[in-house]
């Protein structure tokens, strides 16, 4: 593979800023940072054309560690900051880094509207099911009954499913990966970057200080083949250490079946990330541990008009039909009179 000679070949290290990384030792954020640095060189976008925008939270410190442009904004508002940036600077590659609190609690509305507008930005939500930076309160993704500093008797709010929400508000690219599943994570990040429109990725991320092991079921070598299922476009849903189990549709309900014993791959649910209507993606987003293996990969990837593109098209159209703006004409558009 040859690279364009005008672009220097970058390495992951070129994307490291001069700031010390200050997450807790062992935090899942490190791995996401590493994968990001790894896939960026392959995008062929120069560093100065990239902007990382974040809110507030441990995860939101991310931009400081990237040798690109970056804004560590205020709590929950990164999708809005990114919207203004991307709408006015379509030439930039814009990433939003957020957490389960930043993105789904205080920032839920901005996230929802960024997704429905389908701007060409990539949103990565680090889901550790806890508020890390403020030292351990429950978050909108903490399970019912979760005991935390603010819920000594257990949480009583039904948790949100980030992907169900993203799909509920017209997401065009919706995916999930896991901090420790580095190859998969890299693949998903790369596909998100390549998608035109808002890409939304949930990454299961371990907070080893305040919520250690929240995703152990999905990361443990022993169990992960049974508790997760990798989605591949056009392929049947198969999982298990021996790839001997699958997901079949019974009416509108998924069910686990064993392959063989009269059930073949063809009986299984086939993944279609390009389905025009998001109902399948939605159904997959409802499959949760322990009842089901949790799908990882790309749930949905469809092409839809993008806000930034449409906005700029309207600008071009306005100039075409009405001519480049002329102040003199503007000021004199209505009735005028002359005093001599």
């Amino acid at each position: 593979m040859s690279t364009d000679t005008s672009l220097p070949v970058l390495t992951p290290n070129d994307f490291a800023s001069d700031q010390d990384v200050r997450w807790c030792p062992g935090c899942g954020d490190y791995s996401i940072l590493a994968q990001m640095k790894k896939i960026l060189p392959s995008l062929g976008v120069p560093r100065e054309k990239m902007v990382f925008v974040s809110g507030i939270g441990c995860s939101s410190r991310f931009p400081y560690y990237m040798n690109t442009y970056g804004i560590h904004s205020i709590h929950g508002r990164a999708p809005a900051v990114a919207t203004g940036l991307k709408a006015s600077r379509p030439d930039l590659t814009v990433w939003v880094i957020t957490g389960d609190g930043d993105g789904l609690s205080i920032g839920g509305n901005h996230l929802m509207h960024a997704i429905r507008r389908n701007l060409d930005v990539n949103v990565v939500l680090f889901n550790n099911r806890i508020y890390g930076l403020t030292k351990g309160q429950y978050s909108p993704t903490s399970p019912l009954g979760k005991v935390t500093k603010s819920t000594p008797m257990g949480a009583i709010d039904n948790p949100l499913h980030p992907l169900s929400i993203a799909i509920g508000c017209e997401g065009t690219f919706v995916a999930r990966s896991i901090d420790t599943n580095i190859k998969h994570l890299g693949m998903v990040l790369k596909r998100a970057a390549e998608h035109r429109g808002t890409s939304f990725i949930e990454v299961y991320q371990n907070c080893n200080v305040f919520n250690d092991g929240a995703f152990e079921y999905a990361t443990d070598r022993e169990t992960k083949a049974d508790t997760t299922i990798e989605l591949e476009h056009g392929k049947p849903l198969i999982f298990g250490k021996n790839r001997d189990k699958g997901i079949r549709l019974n009416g509108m309900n998924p069910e686990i079946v064993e392959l063989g014993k009269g059930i073949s791959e063809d009986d299984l649910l086939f993944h279609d990330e390009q389905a025009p209507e998001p109902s399948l993606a939605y159904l997959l987003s409802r499959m949760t541990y322990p009842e089901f293996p949790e799908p990882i990969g790309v749930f949905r990837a469809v092409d839809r008009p993008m806000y930034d593109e449409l906005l700029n098209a309207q600008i071009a159209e306005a100039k075409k039909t009405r001519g480049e703006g002329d102040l003199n004409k503007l000021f004199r558009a209505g009735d005028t009179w002359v005093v001599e």
Partner: protein
Amino acid sequence: MATSTGVSARESKHASKPVVDLVAATVRFCGDSGDGMQLAGNQFTNTSALAGNDIATFPDFPAEIRAPRGTKAGVSGFQIHFAAKEIFTPGDQVDALVAMNPAALVTNLGDLVRGGILVVNKDAFDDKGLKQAGYEESPLEDRTLSAYQVFPVEITRLTRLAVEELGLGVKEADRCRNFYAMGLVFWLYDRSLEPTLRYIEAKFGKRPEVAEANRRALRAGYNYGETTEAFASQFRVHKAELAPGTYRNIMGNEATAYGLITASIRSKCELFLGSYPITPASDILHELSRHKNFNVRTFQAEDEIAAVTAAIGASFGGAMAVTTSSGPGIALKQEGIGLAVMTELPLLIINVQRGGPSTGLPTKTEQADLLQAVCGRNGECPVPVIAARSPADCFDVVQEAWRIATRYMTPVFVLSDGYIANGSEPWKIPDVKAMPPLEIKHPSPLTNGEEFHPYQRDERLARPWALPGTPGLMHRIGGLEKQDITGNVNYEPANHQHMVDLRARKVANIAQDIPPQVVSGPPRGKLLVLSWGGTYGACATAASEVQAQGGSVAHAHLRYLNPFPANLGEILHRYEKVLIPELNRGQLRLLVRGEFLVDAAGLNKVQGKPFSVFEVVDKINELLR
């Protein structure tokens, strides 16, 4: 004088009735919000402007979209002050009032001057209408109106008659009543029908029968004045002596939008507006969204927080970032504005103030958001604040705000208010070619591996506005305290003190970069009237009236509220007394007293309405006594 649009001579060349010359007059149209009073007001305004008068207008909308017909809550009004001299307010009292129904009469009569002209639509004074207005008996039949020249006209019946032949339905016919009323008032003030006839053609040209009906109603009203014996005389207000130039009429929000576009062009910075609709600011969004051919990007955000933070994102990207709102929306933006202060990015925050607190009185005017602008954020968070004084002044103020924002890398507050936003006045169209550019420098690429310092400062303490896309300038900014020069996150005590002081000094220094405060009237003496914002007209007029009567009063109108002009303290101390009239409970007064230790008195009115000139005059005289 000539009109560029070739307005023809007046409709009725041979007035059969005597014509009284006036220096100025004030007319108000009022009626149900469905009665088209805003349209009538706008047409009269436009016609008077084209006739060369100076004008000032004051539309007054009901809070409801369409309150039930005929109720007091549904009354809509539009006042026009037009004069053969320079004027600054829409007039304290009304010389001629047109009331389309009893509810309009009861809510507006108080402003009609004794002996003034009152035209009422007699047909609307039926039992139902009277009851809705709270009249037990018809005011046309008892002595309620004995102090005025009352002209009960069967506007409904006569309008229907005028359009009869066109075969419109009753509803449609009745929609022409405002044109009938206009025609009558046009006759009364000897105005040309031409501009309105042109308007009708442009607006209703595609529905010829509607256009024709409106034309007939207009002419019928005019002829009613001319031919019936009711009206004894006509009035005429000659053209005013305005500075030479081409003029147009402009509303405050429109001027704001034009000023923003102009600043964008002057600074070669594409305009990005992040906004969420709110009365009375929405029209800026509406206006700007129509001018995409000026590279204007308007973003109707999901809320005010998204509006301001999207603007911050755009500013980071190098756009001319603007956000517009009114009081409650501004409250929501304050956290975001703090981010702009910390990241030192240029941003305009335009607050078209309305009555508060809370949701308050959305369609009414007030000046009660000054302290919110100056003090309303967490931490030491200085933001320059400047205020427009009149509809046309909005054009200049926003450009000045953008000059400051970019020279100092800071968010800037612009205060307007409902009164100037919806009011209008003649505006001398500026010479576009003569406008100086607003120069903005962005640092150039660094390619030799040199380190870029995003918080390095120039002589004005401004940091560089480095744009994404520029090689070698990659940097990260955010809301945490920054280390001086490097911009890295830093929590050290001495650095924090340094940065807090530096941000304060940067804003304070702007005082050196703005014109010194001017005073009109005696340079020292008994009383200084110090005003700001939309009360300019009333205060200037009041001060000059008292001056004309020989009172020792001067007037200074503040455009810059943070920082104050460098010479303000010195000015204040040259007068025995200082009076600060405000449409709030004394917000500028607190700041002035706190900064200059001057025992300033206040004239404070919080009624959702502007000052009348006489209120200010009375207070001045009281203090001069």
